[in-house]
């Protein structure tokens, strides 16, 4: 069994790194390869996908007249736009585990770009629904973003890296509400009629998406040491089997709980992205670009709010470890639900805008906090767990749109209020997450002998361990000891542990 890293000279890095060559600091304004470069490539390409997926909502007042859409058609298309990614995110997680985030994300982005180009030539409610459905698949690049960041950045900064990358990508959902009406107005000025101008406008997000995928392929690297394929061929990275990755992912109950709760922060964010422009346009009789401006401020809060969630997760973890991360997540997400209820109840334009911004900060911070926990749930099936959580986010979006925002059953304000109630209820399961080595919200670690190694190595059989396939997990377990928090730091060295049985 060859020792890792012996095939080539160990590469030197611009940033300080740990034993897995993951960066231990996060320098936002650097583009140093491979860590920060991967960060910038992943958030920009993810941003492009968000711009494309939510390019239609701000232009709906024009599109609904051109394609003769009813409120039900619009609602169905909204549901379709977020439902494709439910399974695509899970598939993307597995693809990352097997092929690496660079190829997985770029492939998906280039394969969904046609749907955005074809939006320009949609001619009926059916074709509109189909293009929104297939465009929405691109939101699964979220998973590759988080996987990539979790591969490039070490435990002390992984929450921050995930939060900023995710948040700045999600920004696209807000930016598009500004960009599309602006591009539309420009094209209108040049002389096109309304029903042509919106179609031409869609080429902008489509081209942006295509170009960002090229950048990922040309400039990106899967891991600090290189790309998956080359590392696999050189024997530096082991190739895992789909069935094993799948099994260890879906049998981990924490992945399922996080999938549910993510549906009520991120899912809610997607729902709002779909309905808020029309909500302000119709309820307060605003102009198209004014409604777009207000709608944009919801998504634009992502520039700080989601990263703040990630940073908060890392900060509380320093003192309280994983238990702090879980508490912070529960508190922030529940408050998000409270503000959602308030948003549904206020009646004036000014109050609505203020409440919406506060609501957006809490909801997006909760997204960042969620991905402060996800990297620790599984090492072997990191991609799949990320995918399940991400997919759960989209399920939440599908459900809330189906229940509260389809057709004319509830007014939008009532729907928003009920959605807030659902957020509070569906956030409670966080109380049930428990790590034997670190504890949960209400219980401490199971015993002095429960260790990180036990938890992460339980994902490998003894035959696999004999082949040395588990070595990456071993390194990760060692690096994750920080999740015990500051109190436990003195008692970190496990000598000879009797392997305890785990869930």
């Amino acid at each position, binding site marked *: 069994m060859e020792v890792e890293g012996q095939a080539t000279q160990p590469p030197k890095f611009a940033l300080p790194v740990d034993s897995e060559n993951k960066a231990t600091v996060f320098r936002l304004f650097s583009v140093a390869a491979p860590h920060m470069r991967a960060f910038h490539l992943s958030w920009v390409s993810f941003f492009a996908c968000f711009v494309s997926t939510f390019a239609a909502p701000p232009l709906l007042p024009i599109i609904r007249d051109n394609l003769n859409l*009813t409120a039900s058609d619009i609602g169905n298309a909204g549901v379709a736009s977020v439902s494709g990614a439910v399974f695509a995110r899970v598939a993307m997680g597995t693809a990352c585990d097997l092929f690496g985030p660079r190829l997985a994300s*770029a492939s998906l982005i280039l*394969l969904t*770009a046609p749907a955005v180009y074809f939006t*320009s030539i949609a001619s009926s409610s059916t074709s509109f629904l189909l293009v929104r459905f297939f465009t929405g698949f691109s939101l699964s690049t979220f998973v590759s973003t988080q996987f990539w960041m979790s591969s490039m950045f070490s435990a002390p900064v992984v929450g921050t890296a995930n939060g900023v990358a995710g948040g700045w990508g999600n920004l696209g959902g807000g930016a598009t509400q500004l960009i599309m009406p602006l591009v539309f107005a420009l094209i209108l000025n040049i002389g096109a009629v309304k*029903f*042509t101008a919106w179609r031409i406008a869609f080429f902008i997000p489509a081209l942006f998406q295509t170009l960002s995928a*090229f950048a990922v392929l040309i400039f990106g690297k899967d891991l600090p040491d290189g790309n998956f394929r*080359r590392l696999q061929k050189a024997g530096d990275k082991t190739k895992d089997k789909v069935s094993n990755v799948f099994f260890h992912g879906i049998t981990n109950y924490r992945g399922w709980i996080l999938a549910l709760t993510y549906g009520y922060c991120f899912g809610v964010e997607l729902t709002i992205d779909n309905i808020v422009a029309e909500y302000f346009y119709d309820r307060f009789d605003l102009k198209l670009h004014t409604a777009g401006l207000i709608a944009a401020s919801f998504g634009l809060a992502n520039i700080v709010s989601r990263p703040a969630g990630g940073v908060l997760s890392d900060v509380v973890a320093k003192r309280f470890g994983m238990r702090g991360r879980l508490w912070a997540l529960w508190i922030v997400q529940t408050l998000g639900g409270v503000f959602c209820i308030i948003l549904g109840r206020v009646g004036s334009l000014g109050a609505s805008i203020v409440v919406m911004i506060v609501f957006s900060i809490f909801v997006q911070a909760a997204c960042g906090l969620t991905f402060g926990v996800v990297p620790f749930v599984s090492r072997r099936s990191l991609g799949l767990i990320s995918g399940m959580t991400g997919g759960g986010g989209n399920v939440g979006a599908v459900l809330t749109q189906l229940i509260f925002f389809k057709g*004319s059953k509830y007014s939008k304000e009532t729907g928003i209020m009920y959605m807030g109630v659902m957020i509070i209820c569906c956030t409670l399961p966080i109380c049930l997450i428990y790590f034997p080595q670190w504890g949960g919200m209400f219980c401490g670690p199971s015993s002095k002998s429960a260790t990180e190694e036990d938890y992460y190595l339980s994902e490998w059989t003894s035959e696999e361990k004999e082949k040395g396939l588990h070595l990456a997990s071993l390194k990760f377990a060692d690096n994750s000891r920080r999740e015990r928090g500051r109190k436990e730091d003195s008692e970190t060295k496990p000598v000879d542990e009797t392997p305890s049985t785990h869930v």
Partner: protein
Amino acid sequence: MEMFSSLLCREHFVVTASPAPGQVLKGGVDKITVIWGLNQTLPAGTDSAYKTVKVKLCYAPVSQADRGWRKTKDSMKKDKTCPYKIVDRPYNSANKTSQSVEWTVKRDVPTATYFVRVYAFDADENEVAYGQTTDAHKTTTLIQVEAISGRHKTMDICSIFFSAFSVLSLAGFFYIEKRKGKRSQ
């Protein structure tokens, strides 16, 4: 008048429009001729307050169904039934019985079913009387419009070209990756 319901007893105009039943008007191409006149049975002086007349194209109920943004509301300010202005002119008291206008259906008028309504305004810009081409339930003598699609052949070609380009360039990248992988072995 602030509320449309207060206008109901003041349907003072008789309005007709040119399209024959079953005729579909094409946006940007076809014309519609609207003829309106004061109802002759009304006492003289009924129209003394009328200063301006606006003729509008309005959605019929079948095109408002499941479309909250086209809802009919009693408050005239909030009413979204009649978004398209055909003409806006001063009230001509000399020729009360037969006013007409010929209008080309604009290219941003959506595909839908419509009727035409005429409003008379007084000097304070308040609606004081109306007339429409259809009955009170807005079900008879309706006008069909078929809008432009907004699509062009060039756009179709560009969409297809760039889509194919995206997919093919991905295949190209994979091919290059494979060659690089073989070389490093």
